[in-house]
């Protein structure tokens, strides 16, 4: 569905004095039917990549085929087959919701009658029927988002790009938007390409996570693969007696997939914690506990810790994904 090769985009600012390489030689292949989350800190090149793949911005170099069309050579073919829900509100403030949907249908070559029919289908589908004759200024954030998604779906695209679809929404609206996205996908088998900075969304919803940083892909796989390969599980043991710490570390070293971290006592608690990196916390926990018992270590608390995608990013770059970078 998407094949990008060495896709690059450089912006020149301040009359050519300053060159910003937003995207540097990005390669990407996306199979039809995938739900892919495109993840990265602010300024990583997510939006720029999305704008190139959606033909809004020509690449400085490199090429990409999207939904069978070349983004530079045949942008119209790409535009006919893809949908794009941007971060901003797609419906204009002074236009009624239904009018915008009809206009959008006509923009894709539908007759007026067909565009009206399709608008009504989508109004029902996204539960917007009662809001059809209102202007977006009178809608809530979640309702506007649904209008945006409806506008992106008018021509039933094979591939839908969503830029931060749930940003700025309250938890209830976020859940609602996700429900629609997932239902849509189930019904139509559409390929979904979305950016998000909610890590848990990428984690739970996406089948494939692509992490970008400084204009390049730095990781690509399922959330579980990335976590297992790049961050890994961990077992945290709270010891009853500080004097057991040395023995506990000896046992931990036998299980650890990486050097164990006998971290000093966290402030405020009296007892030390032993952190053991393991390939699979769930299966290692009983064995570790049995071994500790055998060595006479009294364990007060035991916890298997799964890594987050933020841990993956941290492992790759030494920075946290949630740190804001003041670029762009």
């Amino acid at each position, binding site marked *: 569905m998407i094949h990008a090769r060495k896709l690059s985009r450089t912006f020149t600012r301040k009359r050519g004095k300053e060159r910003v390489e937003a995207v540097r030689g990005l390669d990407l292949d996306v199979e039809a039917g995938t739900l892919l989350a495109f993840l990265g800190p602010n300024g990583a090149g997510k939006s720029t990549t999305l704008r190139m793949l959606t033909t809004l911005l020509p690449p400085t170099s490199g090429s990409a085929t999207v939904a069978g069309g070349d983004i530079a050579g045949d942008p119209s073919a790409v535009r006919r087959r893809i949908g794009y829900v941007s971060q901003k509100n797609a419906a204009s403030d002074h236009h009624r919701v239904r009018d915008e949907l009809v206009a959008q249908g006509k*923009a894709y070559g539908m007759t007026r009658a067909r565009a009206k029919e399709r608008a009504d289908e989508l109004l029902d589908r996204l539960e917007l029927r009662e809001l059809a004759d209102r202007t977006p200024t009178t809608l809530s954030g979640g309702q506007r988002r649904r209008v945006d998604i409806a506008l992106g779906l008018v021509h039933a695209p094979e591939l839908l790009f969503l830029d931060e679809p749930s940003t700025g929404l309250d938890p209830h609206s976020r859940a609602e938007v996700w429900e629609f996205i997932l239902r849509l996908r189930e019904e139509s088998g559409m390929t979904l390409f979305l950016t998000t900075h909610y890590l848990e969304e990428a984690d739970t919803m996406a089948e494939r996570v692509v992490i970008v940083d400084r204009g390049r892909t730095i990781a690509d796989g399922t959330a579980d693969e990335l976590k297992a390969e790049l961050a890994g599980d961990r077992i945290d043991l709270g010891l009853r007696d500080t004097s057991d710490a040395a023995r506990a570390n000896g046992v931990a070293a036998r299980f650890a997939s990486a050097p164990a971290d006998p971290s000093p006592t966290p402030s405020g608690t009296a007892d030390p914690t032993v952190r053991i990196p393991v390939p699979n916390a769930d299966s290692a926990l009983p064995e570790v506990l049995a071994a500790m018992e055998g060595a006479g270590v009294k364990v007060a608390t035991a916890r298997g810790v799964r890594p987050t995608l933020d841990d993956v990013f941290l492992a790759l770059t030494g920075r946290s994904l949630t740190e804001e970078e003041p670029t762009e």
Partner: protein
Amino acid sequence: MTVRTASLPPAPVPARSPAASFSRDVATVFTREITPSVRDPLGLLFTMAQPLLLLFFFGPLLGGVGAGGGGGSWQWFVPGVLVMLTLFGPMMAGYNLLVELLGGAMERMLVSPMNRTAMLIGRTLKEFAVLLVQAVLIVLLAVPMGFELYPLGLLAGLLLLAVFGVGLGSLSFLLAMKSAPSGELFYGVTQLAVFPLMLLSGVLLPMDFGPQWLQTVAMVNPVTHIADAMRALFTGSFTDPSIAWGALSAAAVAAVGLTFGTRAMRKGVGV
């Protein structure tokens, strides 16, 4: 059951000739743009307030200073007001575009397969349709006050304004696109450009009264020539040389506007 049919893809689009799809795109954009005005026609009246005030409170003064010579002050002033409306209308067109650029509506249309030039023309045509309604109203109101109607001249004059308006509108769009995302450039330039263009065109008062340097500056202002051509046409003349100059000026503005406007749209907007 309806939910199921909704997931079916829309009917395939029949292949059309480039010209047919171009005019369809123009119509789509035009219809979308004009719908809010049709739904709320009162807004149109508000934008007309200024020219109407000029017509009633300023126009009568011109008779006193003897402007317009033999044609009567209305024959001179009404075309001027229409040119003024054409200056302000497209400025608003750019403003509307800027708002949609800063929001997401423009981007949404730019990812659609619609022709870029058609998008510009559709938008300016909407401004022209509004102008047309306003022009008819103004002419109708001026007739009882002594404005003499030359239907053919009026038609030709409106056509001239249409060409000029499309060009100005495109330039205004170009400016709006260059101004994104802050928009400051747009506000600055429109404030700095539109007023001098109007003052230096003799729209409100004849330039003949001004000093030589002012008249010279007015001569390089395309709006002057368009206003002169309009005045000739509004007295029923089709042979006055000012008409050719006016037509040339309008065509030049349209050519420059459309060329650069479309180029800017192709290059990518915003960020």
